[in-house]
């Protein structure tokens, strides 16, 4: 069977199974278990209505529980056990072993760098783009072009930027634009940008900033549009210049949105894996936690330390998680 046909058949089975569950489980509930007929009609309707929410949510709860909630606890357990010792409980051994690994601290340091730079730069560029495109006639086209990298995979972006950072020997023409510009500006030899410790982190971050700026721009642009015109008009009447209007009138009114954008990008940054994996694979001091974890789990097959690293990522996400839940509950009241 050709892969295409095989794919089609599996698609039909997968999707069909899903539709069938909802249809037949409802039929079962209404027609067989508690039919709204006979002497118990009223009671049956109430019973059926009490069960139906769980029928509707059943697959979702099962999937969420199994694929997101259970792994948190299982990973915690794995991080406290040693696989090679048959899964024996070893307490904090994995964590201490990890703390003695230089690569781990390098990953932590880099993750903090990413956390400092990427959300800040993406939000700043996004805000700039949102403000500038807001009032010009071709603003929507400009926005959709800046937004475009959102659709490109991290791996695709890695290839795109590897071409930009490409370095060739000194005596042949440079095909990486960064080196071409650098030599044009008087640099003496082409530089392999991705192998210079510390700065290569910045070159990797640029990829993510390039992708995330569009996201920040779209959200902030909507927030800017939501600012009441009167506040801006009043400021103009009072003689404020455009910069004062932006920083003193608009910024304070969209600060809530800026925080949301910032935290959303922060979560993306904490999980960043593909870019580092595809571009340097953590060599030349560019390791990050997610890639470190992948290394430990699937290359070194050390589930204990890998899980411990995953728990560190979870730990860093937790404040945002708590804050989100707090906000959501406040809103529902």
């Amino acid at each position, binding site marked *: 069977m050709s892969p295409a046909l095989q*794919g089609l058949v599996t698609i039909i089975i997968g*999707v069909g199974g899903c539709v069938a569950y909802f249809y037949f489980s409802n039929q079962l509930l209404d027609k067989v278990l508690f039919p709204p007929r006979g002497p118990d009609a009223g009671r049956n309707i109430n019973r059926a209505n009490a069960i139906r929410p769980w029928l509707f949510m059943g697959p979702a709860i099962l999937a969420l529980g199994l694929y997101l909630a259970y792994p948190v606890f299982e*990973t915690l357990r794995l991080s406290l056990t040693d696989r090679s010792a048959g899964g024996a409980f070893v307490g904090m051994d994995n964590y201490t072993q990890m703390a003695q690994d230089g690569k781990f601290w390098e990953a932590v340091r880099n993750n903090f760098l990413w956390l400092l730079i990427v959300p800040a730069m993406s939000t700043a560029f996004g805000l700039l*783009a949102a403000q500038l495109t807001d009032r010009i006639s071709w603003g929507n086209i400009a926005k959709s072009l800046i937004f475009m990298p959102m659709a490109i995979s991290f791996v695709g972006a890695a290839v795109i930027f590897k071409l930009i950072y490409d370095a060739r020997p000194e005596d042949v023409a440079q095909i*990486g634009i960064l080196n071409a510009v650098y030599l044009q500006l008087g640099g003496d030899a082409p530089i392999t940008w991705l192998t210079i410790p510390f700065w290569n982190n910045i070159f990797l971050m640029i990829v993510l900033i390039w992708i995330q700026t569009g996201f920040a721009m*779209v959200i902030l642009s*909507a927030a800017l549009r939501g600012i009441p015109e009167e506040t801006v008009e009043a400021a103009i009447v009072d003689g404020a210049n455009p910069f004062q209007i932006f920083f003193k009138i608009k910024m304070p009114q969209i600060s809530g949105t800026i925080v949301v954008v910032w935290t959303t990008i922060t979560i993306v940054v904490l999980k960043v894996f593909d870019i580092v994996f595809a571009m340097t694979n953590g060599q030349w001091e560019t390791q990050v936690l997610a890639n470190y974890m992948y290394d430990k789990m699937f290359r070194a097959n050390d589930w204990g330390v890998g899980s411990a690293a995953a728990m560190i990522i979870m730990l860093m996400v937790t404040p945002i998680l708590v804050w989100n839940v707090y906000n959501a*509950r406040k809103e529902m009241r």
Partner: protein
Amino acid sequence: MDSIAGKKSGLTWAVHISVAALVLLWIFPTVGLLISSFRTTDQIVTSGWWAALFPAVQNETLRTADPDDFRVARDGMFVVEGNLYVVDGSVDDAADVPAEISAWGTSSRAIDDYVAGDTADLGDGEMITVQSNGDYLWVGDEEQLSGRGQRVFVTAESPPEFTLDNYRGVLFDPANREGMSRAFMNTLTVTIPATIIPILIAAFAAYALAWMDFPGRALLVAAVVALLVVPLQLALIPLLSLHNDIGIGKGYLGVWLAHTGFGLPLAIYLLRNYMVGLPRDIIESAKVDGATDFQIFTKIILPLSFPALASFAIFQFLWTWNDLLVAMVFLIDSSGETTVMTRQIVELLGTRGGDWEILATSAFVSIAVPLVVFFTMQRYLVRGLLAGSVK
């Protein structure tokens, strides 16, 4: 705002120019990859992609046809006639020559001694004339016109030249084991069910969370919000061993389930927020008319929620299409039969690091579909983003 006094036209120009600069900066990288994917190997190696936009000036060493085979007698002399580019094999017919020779020479020390149309005197009556399209006429006596063809050094300007060969090789060459056609189909096989299944599951759950009354509803909503940010890295090992234990192993079923699980929190969150905003009257009057919840859901809620369904579908599609990590862990086994495009590209980055024609083309094959989806459905994507993050 333009109508309000105090807006200087100088500032307006500055805004236009800075937006243009920003846009150029942002599309520049992608354009580079796109152009590179249409260039031949030779072109990519000899010049940066930006050079492809302008006519290229190239120095080449060409050779006339071998006199022993091609010379003809004319007026007591021997003559070899033809076109340098045809002899070189770069074109089949002299009419197709793309380049225009501006200068040429017969010695490597003086490659630009003559301009097109000139006749070079090679001594003792031996002469060669080269035209701008590479046509040459080489005249000499029997002894002079023997052995190999005369070398001609040309400086030629060729217009921008693009080729579809890279795409042919990457997509349609069945002999190419590094090709993308199989990976493309695999990615599609992963993506479509992994987009549709979570929508189905989430839509039912979102309806229950939005419009049904039952104990623990608020708690479940909070749980969904919490799960929104749980890093999927935590799920890799526990779920892989689970899949192995229950016999799914690595395969499509596993990767669909994983994508479904990871996509659900966002799906439920987006859809519930949207459904809560639907008018209560419609739902209540349908209930009064005796509609069951299942009917209300399929006949009223689903059609009304189309914008939210579409925006989540785009998210999930982009995310599963572009995913690398989940596919590597849950799908791709050691045989590599089920490799997806992102994985294939990472492999190529390792094995074909310098072959940019292959890399650029492969990457663009995988980028093209999301880009099309992005530009056609951008409206829904933006709406989804706003619903998902602005409170």
